[in-house]
């Protein structure tokens, strides 16, 4: 188990290094001079040069990569070209929006998907099953930003139950904060909940057709007992994988949804940074999101080992 853990950790570290190189190189060739953007239409060449020097834009590629990557390790993401504040601070602030949003959406999606998936699987072939599956087909097919637009139209502009966007801030109270995240979280969660419902259902159906369910039934367990005691935990293994993958989709999907609801999260930050040529912010945010994806998948791998005794020993 420890050996397995260490190996996964090593491969995690390698993935992170590879990802950082890809991100750095990709953004290194970006055309556009942050200094020019910052100084605007009437800037003069000497001013530009002064600023470039100030921003540390004049080193070699390798020097700049090493200083960036080295900084990442110590939590120092550098200084934003445009905001002139430490990138780590900016990201830290934005994380308090993006992370709760992703978690909120994940929670919503799980709260919807688990009962719905179990319900549909336990009534396979019934109208319930058909209805739930039909709904998930729609949920998967609906573009979530469109759904978000419709929700804003109905709930914010017409009914005025929610504000149309923006973030009240956690200092305005937990409820107020959650309220500003509610519509975005619903929009983000809808397709994920639909996918998760389908996975839950089919995984449960697969498990229900396994031999050991028959064994359990032969012991005298009712259909429901067999499902709750034996099928569910086994069915969770693929569901866990999908949830791990979904976390990354939620973080990335937030890039669009944060723009619909103008939430001050990582997604908006990365868009603003791109248009401002604030490369160091783009690099850091993309790296952070990739880091989150890799780490979550790593955590899911470890979670398997906890859930499944077979993995505990074999590895």
């Amino acid at each position, binding site marked *: 188990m420890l050996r397995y853990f260490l190996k996964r950790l090593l*491969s995690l570290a*390698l*993935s992170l290094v*590879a*990802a950082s190189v*890809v*991100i750095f190189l*990709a*953004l290194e*060739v*970006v*055309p556009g001079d942050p200094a020019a953007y910052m100084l605007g239409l009437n800037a003069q060449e000497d001013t530009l040069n002064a600023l470039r020097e100030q921003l540390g834009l004049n080193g070699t590629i390798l020097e700049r990569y090493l200083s960036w990557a080295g900084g990442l390790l110590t939590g120092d993401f550098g200084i934003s070209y445009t905001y002139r504040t430490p990138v780590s601070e900016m990201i830290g602030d934005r994380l308090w929006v993006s992370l709760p949003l992703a978690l909120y959406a994940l929670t919503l999606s799980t709260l919807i998907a688990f009962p719905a998936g179990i319900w549909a699987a336990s009534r396979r072939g019934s109208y319930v099953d058909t209805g739930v599956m039909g709904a998930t*087909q*729609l949920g*998967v*097919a*609906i*573009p979530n*930003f*469109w759904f978000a*637009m*419709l929700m804003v*139209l109905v709930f914010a*502009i017409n009914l005025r139950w929610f504000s149309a966007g923006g973030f009240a801030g956690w200092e305005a109270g937990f409820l107020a904060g959650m309220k500003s995240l509610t519509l975005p979280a619903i929009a983000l969660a809808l397709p994920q909940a639909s996918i998760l419902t389908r996975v839950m259902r089919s995984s449960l159906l697969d498990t229900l057709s396994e031999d050991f369910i028959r064994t359990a039934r032969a012991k005298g367990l009712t259909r429901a007992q067999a499902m709750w005691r034996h099928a569910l935990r086994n069915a969770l293994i693929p569901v866990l994988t999908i949830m791990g993958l979904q976390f*990354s*989709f939620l*973080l*990335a*999907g937030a*890039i*669009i949804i944060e*723009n619909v609801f103008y939430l001050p999260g990582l997604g908006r930050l*990365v*868009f603003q940074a*791109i248009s401002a040529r604030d490369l160091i912010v*783009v690099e850091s945010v*993309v790296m952070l*999101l*990739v880091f989150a*994806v*890799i780490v979550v*998948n790593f955590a899911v791998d470890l979670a398997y080992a906890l859930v499944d005794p077979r993995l505990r020993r074999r590895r």
Partner: protein
Amino acid sequence: MSLLFYNRSFLPGIILTTVFAAAALISLVWVPYDTTILNIAEKLKPPNLAHPLGTDQFGRDILSMIMVGARTSIAVALVAVGIGMIAGVPLGLAAAARKGGLLDEVIMRMNDLVFAFPSLLIAVMITAVFGASALNAIIAIGIFNIPVFARLTRGAALTLWNREYILAARVAGKGQARISVEHILPNVANLLIVQGTIQFSLGILAEAGLSYVGLGAQPPTASWGRMLADSQTMISFAPHLALFPGLAILLTVLGLNLLGDGLRDLLDPKLRRART
């Protein structure tokens, strides 16, 4: 053949898909109104006899725009799926043929690496580097599709490599490459077709999303995602602008997903045997 029409998913799927594919194809030769000509005087008309779906903020016919937009969506998603398949399938076949070897390891680690970048992040980076365009959207979605197909192919091929007919082919002196092409590929084709439809629908959603945030097709190319983005400020007084392109995306994706489900059922020999 009649079996096709009893499948609950296949029939609606193929109908929806055909409708939008036909709309895209027809738009190549004819649209009700030329979408490159703006008619400001006719702008923002609600649906009426002359314009069944109304007109947009520049007075263009929305039905025509949706037809032309279907072309963009379908082209982008189709090429992206093509990229994913053309690059991903051989990689998956090669990895499976060399299971446990260095090649397999390298391919799978590269897959993991790409998987760590959700397609939107790839798009963000590509856009940051090369600017926004339909081509870059294709590349972003296509890159993301590669590991999807590589993994699927490898997984399916691995189980096939344990089949005795592979051993029989090896006894007949055939090499790994030849076996991959002659025996493995035809037997994973069904899976690839089904996954292809799914990725196709995901591609349409992704293209719409990218165009919506301005990272996709650029004007004057009509695109559903951009139509939605453009309509956003007018949704309160001209809801038809947002309604129809959204529905077009929804129905196309729905159609493709249903088609994929239907194909999966129809192409799965296990299920087919059970039904006949």
